């Protein structure tokens, strides 16, 4: 059996390693996609006061500190038994929408978008945000930066700190919104809506009008029929801040809907000997391995999953964009809702629909009369023992679960992070893309890494939550090995 391994040389920011095993005929037999973990987070937390968690967990990762901050804050609501007031919920959600706008903007323009805007065949050095602005103009680069900056200002204003917010309290928020703050936020939100609409138009003009790109999105190599998870409101519309977690089956039928607190009843984790990371799966279906279909408990939690799990979007323009996406990709309406879209590369489109939703929702909240309610710090009186909180992080459902003693000192911490949800589907996507490129012993090294990269980039994976890195690259190495372990060939490339 031959082994192809795609392995990074260093591990500062965190790395993925891909091992592709070939059978005797030279076809892909199996693919192992391993992701290392930062170690000892639970031990680090145990023994500390639970109320520190919103400020500690947002240090796990420099990419989505706001998501960890919010999941931790909501876990504290549950832990201390304080139901946040409507004003607190709206304030938190408004903060969170600013975060979604900036995060999705960055992903589309700097990371996922370049594959389409610049082209999947372009050399890696071109497939980045500079390549995007070379193709569509420097004005767009300016808009991307301005969007990031104005939303970071909102995050700082509401969250109390620029990068790692500190405002979340059990049942509350440390500061109320003043009318002046509200006006500034409303102004930013209006610009976000314009930017969201603009981004969808860009996607239509550059990606959808190009038949080759559309074919790529619709190609079998990037298609998986799995279950989909996402948080929904009472009308089953997508919500990022709060609601029930809904899972639909590959045909779009609701499989289960539950409050975050019950996550352990529905989600189990499969341990495989070849990786540190566990594979979450649906308990009610069972683990059948890395396969798709209704009989396999593999589920996916991404922007695409969220629009699949929901019956629609809660804001008008995002709903229009949602309908256009499902119609364009040929999804039929069954029992009043669209069938799920299984094309993984459509995740990029779904992300833009979500970007527009987050912008519109932020605008709605900024004009809500309750948003300036000064009463945002409730008194906490109950004795803590256990709390669960969840939000939709940009890259999937994020759940924090804490147990404490009667003094609120942590005794156990468990987290299911966005990327972890998608570990199984990502491994499947990598395998499928490898199968298309390795047949009968012929390894098409040219483009192999690009295609494999595209397969997992759609999921926007956080391979490990670190903060930064010098010199700023993640080299990957592909080694093709003969059955005796000798190196047949070796290619090297860098992923972003």
């Amino acid at each position, binding site marked *: 059996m031959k082994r192809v391994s795609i392995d990074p040389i*260093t*591990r*500062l*920011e965190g790395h993925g390693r891909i091992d592709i095993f070939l059978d005797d005929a030279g076809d892909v037999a199996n693919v192992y996609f391993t992701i*290392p973990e*930062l*170690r*000892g*987070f639970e*031990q*680090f937390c145990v023994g500390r006061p639970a109320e520190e968690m919103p400020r*500690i967990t947002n*240090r796990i990762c*420099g*990419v989505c500190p706001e998501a960890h901050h919010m999941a931790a804050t909501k876990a504290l609501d549950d832990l201390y038994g304080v139901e946040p007031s409507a004003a607190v919920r709206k304030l938190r959600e408004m903060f969170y929408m600013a975060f979604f706008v900036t995060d999705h903007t*960055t*992903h589309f323009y*700097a*990371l996922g978008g370049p594959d389409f805007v610049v082209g999947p065949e372009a050399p*890696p*050095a071109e497939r*980045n*945000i*500079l390549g995007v*602005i070379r193709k569509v103009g*420097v004005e767009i*680069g*300016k808009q991307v*930066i301005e969007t*990031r*900056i104005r939303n*970071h200002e909102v995050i700082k204003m509401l969250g109390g700190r*620029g*990068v*790692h917010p500190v405002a979340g309290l059990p049942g509350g928020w440390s500061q109320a919104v003043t009318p002046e703050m509200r006006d500034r936020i409303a102004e930013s939100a209006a610009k976000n809506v314009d930017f969201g609409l603009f981004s969808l138009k860009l996607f239509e003009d550059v990606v959808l009008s190009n038949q080759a790109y559309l074919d790529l999105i619709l190609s079998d190599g990037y298609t998986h029929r799995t279950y989909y998870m996402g948080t929904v409101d009472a009308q089953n519309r997508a919500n990022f801040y709060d609601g029930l977690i809904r899972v639909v089956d590959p045909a779009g039928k609701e499989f289960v809907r539950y409050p975050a607190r019950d996550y352990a009843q529905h989600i189990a984790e499969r341990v495989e000997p070849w990786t540190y990371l566990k594979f979450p799966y649906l308990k009610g279906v069972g683990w059948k391995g890395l396969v798709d279909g209704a009989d396999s408990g593999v589920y996916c939690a991404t922007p695409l999953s969220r629009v699949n799990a929901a019956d629609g979007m809660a804001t008008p323009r995002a709903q229009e964009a949602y309908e256009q996406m499902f119609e364009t990709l040929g999804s039929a309406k069954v029992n009043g809702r669209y069938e799920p879209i299984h094309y993984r590369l459509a995740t990029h489109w779904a992300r833009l629909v979500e970007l527009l939703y987050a912008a519109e929702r932020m605008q709605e909240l900024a004009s809500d009369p309750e948003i300036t309610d000064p009463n945002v710090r409730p008194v906490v009186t109950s004795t803590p023992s256990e709390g669960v909180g969840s939000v939709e992080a940009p890259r999937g459902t994020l759940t924090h679960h804490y147990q404490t003693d009667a003094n609120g000192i942590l005794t156990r911490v468990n987290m299911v992070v966005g990327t972890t949800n998608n570990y199984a589907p990502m491994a499947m996507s990598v395998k499928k893309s490898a199968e298309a490129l390795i047949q009968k012993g012929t390894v098409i090294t040219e483009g192999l890494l690009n295609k494999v990269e595209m397969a997992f*980039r759609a999921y*926007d*994976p*956080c*391979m*490990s939550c*670190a*903060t*930064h*890195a*010098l*010199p*700023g*690259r*993640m080299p990957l190495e592909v080694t093709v090995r003969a059955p005796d372990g000798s190196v047949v060939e070796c290619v090297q490339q*860098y*992923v*972003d």
Partner: protein
Amino acid sequence: MTILVLGLGNPILTDDGVGVRVARLLRAALPPDCDVEVDEVSVGGLRLMERMVGHRRVLIVDALLSGTAPPGTVRRLTLDDLRQASDTRHSRSPHDADLITALDLGRRAGMTVPEEVVFVAVEVENVVDFGEEPTPAVAAAIPLAAAAARREIDRWLGAPVSDT
């Protein structure tokens, strides 16, 4: 124009937070009236570039895991060193652009990005275990890195750039 000093890193990831510790030491040692702003940031790429906007000279103190020197080794690097080390324009994080790309983008978008960025990098050992204390060799290098950073700052203060 104010010199910006940024200590980078995750303060709860063992050696990764060395830059933050150096920045704290440096802040305490600088005379209060000097034209130097010291900050701690756990960011990279685009957000790091955005933090630098408006400053012509920026000193970054960070952890470096090259494996080519013993832990605790302090090195001075420039943007050119970074350019040579990275022959693509991607960050190691799949969620960001690298600093060179980010600066390039900022410049093209008409922002005032720094003309001179110097890095004081400390070779580290452990950036995968959560912990608040750096490993001994890295801890011992903190005053050395702060001194190296101070030399850089003094050099700049001795040759100020005009505000225009």
